[in-house]
């Protein structure tokens, strides 16, 4: 789970955070560390509390319990009755709707954080110019936000968030209103910027593809709690719960039964084994939930202990997508496009990379 680097410095530390709205608990007892120079993507369905968590870190919401430490300095502590206002935290934030001020030009939007701190005019000018260069908006400083394209607005918001050289940048679904192509481009740009500036980014999104593309680490949230966190690879390959398996990528969730296999155990499904020599705790005869990615099921005419019938075929260019009916369950299977089966064929399924999930 750790980044495997001994010298990693914790940039933001969230401890046992609780935030309630009247009777609804938006964030429950959540702890999380963010390291310097990493992009942490918090992903989860809408209403899972991820934006609230971000607002608590920013100081826009006051948590009900716990601690938040930014750059070694406590900014919220229930015990010590400490709550630093957002303007005292020096963080950058990009909002979902960018929150660009419509009555200010690009220049004035970016210069605002500097001006509010009474920084000298020359310095303001040179800093804004520096940021305009970074986000490649030089020459558009006199435009108003509505005169810019979506991507440009996004970059203004980014420049404004970065102009004070914050140690932490918070991104609240800022890419969700861009079209798919532009979104991908911005993902690369933000990643590049982050590498150059070496800051920590906490990025909130409900889009798992975006999370995979950008994250050094992903934290999956559900109902105000962290359900799993780790590198994208860990999350994708070893989901620990049914929810994570389904939320990040596609997954087949299979109900298997533990049976004896010599002096070991095997897991059986629909009359055939899925997993032999399984190293699991379950008692003989107990049910376990398994998650298998569609690309980790291979089909063949003769092999495979679990038999099923092809119920649907979808050509996807580089891959084929099959629906295999086993008992009364449809399995999603993805194979390379040169393996061809027709609807109604009886096929055998072999399972690789299986995860037991809760």
């Amino acid at each position, binding site marked *: 789970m750790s980044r495997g680097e001994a010298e990693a410095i914790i940039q933001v530390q969230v401890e046992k955070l609780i935030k309630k709205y009247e009777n609804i608990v938006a964030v429950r007892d959540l702890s999380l560390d963010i390291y310097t120079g990493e992009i942490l993507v918090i992903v989860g369905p809408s209403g899972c509390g991820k934006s609230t968590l971000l607002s608590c870190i*920013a*100081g*826009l*919401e006051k948590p009900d319990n716990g601690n938040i430490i930014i750059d070694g300095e406590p900014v919220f502590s229930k015990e010590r009755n400490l709550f630093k*206002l*957002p*303007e005292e935290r*020096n*963080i*950058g*934030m990009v*909002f*979902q*709707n*960018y*929150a*660009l*001020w*419509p*009555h200010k030009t690009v220049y004035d939007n970016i210069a*605002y*954080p500097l001006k*509010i*701190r009474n920084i000298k005019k020359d310095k303001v000018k040179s800093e804004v110019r520096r940021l305009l260069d970074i986000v490649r908006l030089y020459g558009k400083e006199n435009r*108003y*936000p*509505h005169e810019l394209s979506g991507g440009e*607005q996004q970059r203004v918001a980014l420049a*404004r*968030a970065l102009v*004070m050289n914050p140690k932490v940048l918070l991104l609240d679904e800022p890419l*969700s*209103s861009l079209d798919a192509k532009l979104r991908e481009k911005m993902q690369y740009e933000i990643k590049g910027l982050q590498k150059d500036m070496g800051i920590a980014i906490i990025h909130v999104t409900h889009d798992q593809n975006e999370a995979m593309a950008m994250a050094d680490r992903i934290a999956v949230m559900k109902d105000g709690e962290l359900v799993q966190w780790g590198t994208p690879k860990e999350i994708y390959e070893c989901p620990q719960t049914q929810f994570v398996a389904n939320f990040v990528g596609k997954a087949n969730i299979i109900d298997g039964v533990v049976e004896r296999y010599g002096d070991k155990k095997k897991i059986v499904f629909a009359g055939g084994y899925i997993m032999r020599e399984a190293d699991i705790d379950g008692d003989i005869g107990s049910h376990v939930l398994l998650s298998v990615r569609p690309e980790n099921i291979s089909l063949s005419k003769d092999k495979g202990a679990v038999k099923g019938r092809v119920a649907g075929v979808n050509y996807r260019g580089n891959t084929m997508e099959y629906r295999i009916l086993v008992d009364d369950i449809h399995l999603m299977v993805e194979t390379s496009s040169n393996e061809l089966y027709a609807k109604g064929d009886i096929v055998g399924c072999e399972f690789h990379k299986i995860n037991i999930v809760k």
Partner: protein
Amino acid sequence: MDLKIFLRKNKGLKKHTKRLRSPLEVVILLILGVLIGSFILYPFVILVMKSFGLSLDGGAFSLEGYKRIIRDTYNYTALRNTLYVASGVTVLTSILGGALGWIVARTDYAYKRFTKILVFLNFIIPSYIVAIAWIEFFGRNGYLSRILYKIFGLSNYNMRPYSLEAVIIVMSVHLYPLVFMAITNALRKTDSSLEDAAVISGASRLKAAMTITLPLVMPSFISIGLLIFSRTIANFGVPAVLALPVGEEVLTTRIYSSLTNLDFQLVTALSIFLVMISGGIFLLSNLLLKRKGFTMITGHSKKPRLIELGKHKKTLTTCVFIFHILTTMIPLASVLIASFLKRWGLSLEIKHFTLNNYLLLFRHEIIIRAFGNSIFYGLTAATIAACVGVGVSYISHKTNIKGKKIIELIASLPMAFPNIVLAVAAALTWIKQPLKLYGTEWIIIVTYIALFIPISIKNIGGLMQNQDASLEKAARASGASRIKGFVDITLPLTMPGIKSGWILGFLIALREIPISLLLYSSGKETIGVMLFGIQSNTYGLEMTSTLAVVIIVLTVIGNILIGKIGNVKRGGGGNHTSTS
């Protein structure tokens, strides 16, 4: 006029009428032209001509009327007073409505629904009734003097309830809801994340509000301020009852008193002058509203984050409650209590209370007739205005007839006219042949029509504009003729606007004073005339109050009905509900 001759004369029209499929539509267009021409354009032209000393029978051109506005001390003072009152009301309502609007839109103040209801109540109570309540509370025989005497034994109460400042306060109590509504609306539209972004950037909450939110709501603030200014200028009832008795005049009361002197050129010049001020303001605010569009870039706006008042919550809530007591409760209570008094001026003891006023009110022949008249005038005018409104809206939203903008502009002209000016124009226009309506109820109805047409266009046009053109096209595609499509699809969808127009017509007729006061003749009295003139040797303020209570109750019911009909922007018709 023969249709063919008409078409031959108007080549441009012919070209466009060609595009219309049925001759029926041409007829409708003609009827509209005649109605708008005779009820709006004709009186307007007469008014302008008279102000330059001209009339249909001739007369010599002169600027005498206008010169006298500046030269004559009376007129000049009235002008100065008008500007003083209007500025005072604009400032006071901005402060009251702005502060209350901010509290409701952006803080966690707890009694928002309650406040909204009271503000709306303030909005619909006719200003004239607030003025009556003012006198009942602050007058020499009023509640305040009695309370002071009872509690402190003060017998030398000498606060004068009549003054320009009283006009300012009463008008502000009546008009601050407009600012409140505009500001809560503007704040609701201003995404609170804009302010959050400023705070994240290092600004304090206060600084963020000043540098981000305030500039963004400023255009609405200014344009509503201008509306308040012109509404104050146009008001007749309040200065007539609160300033005229001590000899202070404003332009509207000056018009009224000059009319009783039959000084027509001055009257018309003053009227045109008043129209120019309020018309200019109207244009200015339209210009501002158009430019107001700082295009908001919004993705998904979240629910605004409410500012926690914390330890100030109690203080602020108390302040708001005191405000409501002063502006809504006391005026309502004053009128209500007075309506149960045997005679205004009696001390507030149980033995002096009675239900008799209400019984008397409904047995009083003239008052019953006045109710009947008001209802009849209001509904008749509202019906005709609705027809014109449907016609004009249809032309401007569903056809591409050239000059449709001009038709709409002329039809909306009365909006810039204070009621008393409409009355003056009507009096001068309909007093002699070819159409002598003076002395009949039709002069009032015709003027009400002019008053209602812009309201009806606003209500109905708004609904029609929002209808997708494809709806009627779908009817055509299903085999309906153009007219059938209109009758089956567009008209039913416009019905809420027409219905609420009827109720509004009824409500305005119930409270409107200057038009009927100037134009009524014996037997044609309206409720407005009664309200203004019932106080006499026979009856005191107690009867005025009784009538006022009935009007308030009917107004509340009417507005609830309008709310039920829904789909009609309150701002549209509501704006005019309280014009009197």
